[in-house]
């Protein structure tokens, strides 16, 4: 049964060996050339399964993988019962929201600390289970890296997700994420990353702070 038609893959809820499972199927995309399409689907299917595993090693809950089928570009994995953070975040109280965002920040910190970049940190890709655990899903755009730049982009995407989907609470949410993040990677590293995020954002179009940031960066060498 199709439960989510994503941009990249479709998710099916199936029974498989008497288990409730998710089959993540990357269908061919008709809009792009078959060469490009195959390259992307193959790459992402392999990397996603590897990263789901690396994330577990980092202490971040992710769905259990049961089967990776490269020929059909699909992954069969555990079905996680719970609610998307996207659906509940705006409904929480200030305190609950702060708590949840800190928890998310800690988990992102653990991923980064272990050299895992999620690649698509949005609140749709986090599931809050009944016992209060946050499970990260969809590592299709992720990669293994310890580069500061990629960590910065990862957090920038999280910030952008708050700004577009949770705009009323964007600032407090991202602040709490960084607080949680700092608990894992330390204050100094978080300061370095925060500066990196500003630098990344200042490369974008029409950032009024661009000139100021560039001056700051060059004066600091």
């Amino acid at each position: 049964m199709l439960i989510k038609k994503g941009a990249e893959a479709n998710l099916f809820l199936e029974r498989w060996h008497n288990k409730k499972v998710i089959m993540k199927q990357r269908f061919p995309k008709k809009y792009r050339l078959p060469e490009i399409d195959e390259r992307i689907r193959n790459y992402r299917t392999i990397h996603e399964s590897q990263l789901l595993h690396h994330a577990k090693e980092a202490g971040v809950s992710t769905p259990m993988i049961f089967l990776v089928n490269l020929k059909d570009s699909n992954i069969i994995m555990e079905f996680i019962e719970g609610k998307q953070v996207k659906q509940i975040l705006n409904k929480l109280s200030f305190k609950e929201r702060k708590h949840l965002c800190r928890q998310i920040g800690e988990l992102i910190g653990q991923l980064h600390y272990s050299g895992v970049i999620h690649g698509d940190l949005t609140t749709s890709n986090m599931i809050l289970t009944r016992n209060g655990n946050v499970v990260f899903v969809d590592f299709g755009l992720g990669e293994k890296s310890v580069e500061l730049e990629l960590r910065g982009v990862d957090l920038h995407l999280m910030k952008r997700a708050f700004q577009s989907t949770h705009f009323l609470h964007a600032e407090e949410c991202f602040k709490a994420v960084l607080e949680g993040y700092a608990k894992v990677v330390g204050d100094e590293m978080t300061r370095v990353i925060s500066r990196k995020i500003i630098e990344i954002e200042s490369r974008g179009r029409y950032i009024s702070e661009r000139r100021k940031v560039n001056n700051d960066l060059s004066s600091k060498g």
Partner: protein
Amino acid sequence: MPKFCLGIEATADDFSVGILDFNGNVLANVISAFIPKMGGIHPREAARHHGKVVGQVISTAFQEAHVKPEKLALISFSQGPGLGPCLRTGATAARALATYLDIPLVGVNHCVAHIEIGKLATGAKDPVTLYVSGGNTIVSAFEARYYRVFGETLDIAVGNCLDIFAREAGLHQRAGMPLGAIVEKLAEEGNELVDLPYCVKGMDLSFSGLLTAAIRLFEVRQYRLEDLCFSMQEIAFSMLTEVTERALAHTEKREVLLTGGVGANKRLQAMLRTIADEHDSRFCVVPKQYALDNGAMIAWTGILAYEHGKIIPVEKSFVRLKWRLDEVEAPWVGG
């Protein structure tokens, strides 16, 4: 008595004046493009061009629209984002007209105008918009008073990427034939895919690596220019389509709007139509005459803003070079 608005667009290389009535009928849309002899747009030279043609373009617009200056109710102008000297030239003309005719002045955000003209021309109500041009690459959708940016380029715009490559490859822009159109034509003759970097970060994009790689491959002279153009388009447009689809899946809107100069590209249109169909959404593409920078879109957005009281006094009508799409409150959008 019908009311009319005159809009002045001068953010980059095009100087354009549009005249619309308040029902959204375009009565004139005159565009004068600055075509550099070599290289890209030099802001000062573009502004000099605008200064030279401003009188002619405005009077042609009045003639085409059969509207007398005294009949205007409103002047609007592109207040940003864009190149400083160009914006100031347009703003100066707008202030002069508004002061002389003693009518209100409205400053319009150029990116909002591209979306609004797309909605007016296609009837789209609440789309996910892909706005692609030489200066911008933005995926946005309206949520609670603002056009929210879901994804955008982290470095250069897709049109800029294609333009710079074309210039490096020795191609020249001609009147009525922008570089993007020349690349599109060459790409139709290409068929061999050259390996180039595909760079999507969530819903954000990066084109600078693609550009550098393509220029390097051109310089080794082992590939046909047609194949390079073809591959650049295929890779860049696949990236754009992927992030637009991601925004569509995320927002669950029922319309996809393609707007901006690169929106005139047939291959990009075909790709976006495919994903719109897959998500049971309506695909809308801005007609060619409103894809490039134009005065009509500024006039129309000026009318929408004016009807919500957003007029600005001349002494506060400074241009805003880095005015972001998501900084503009848009009370005229329902929902």
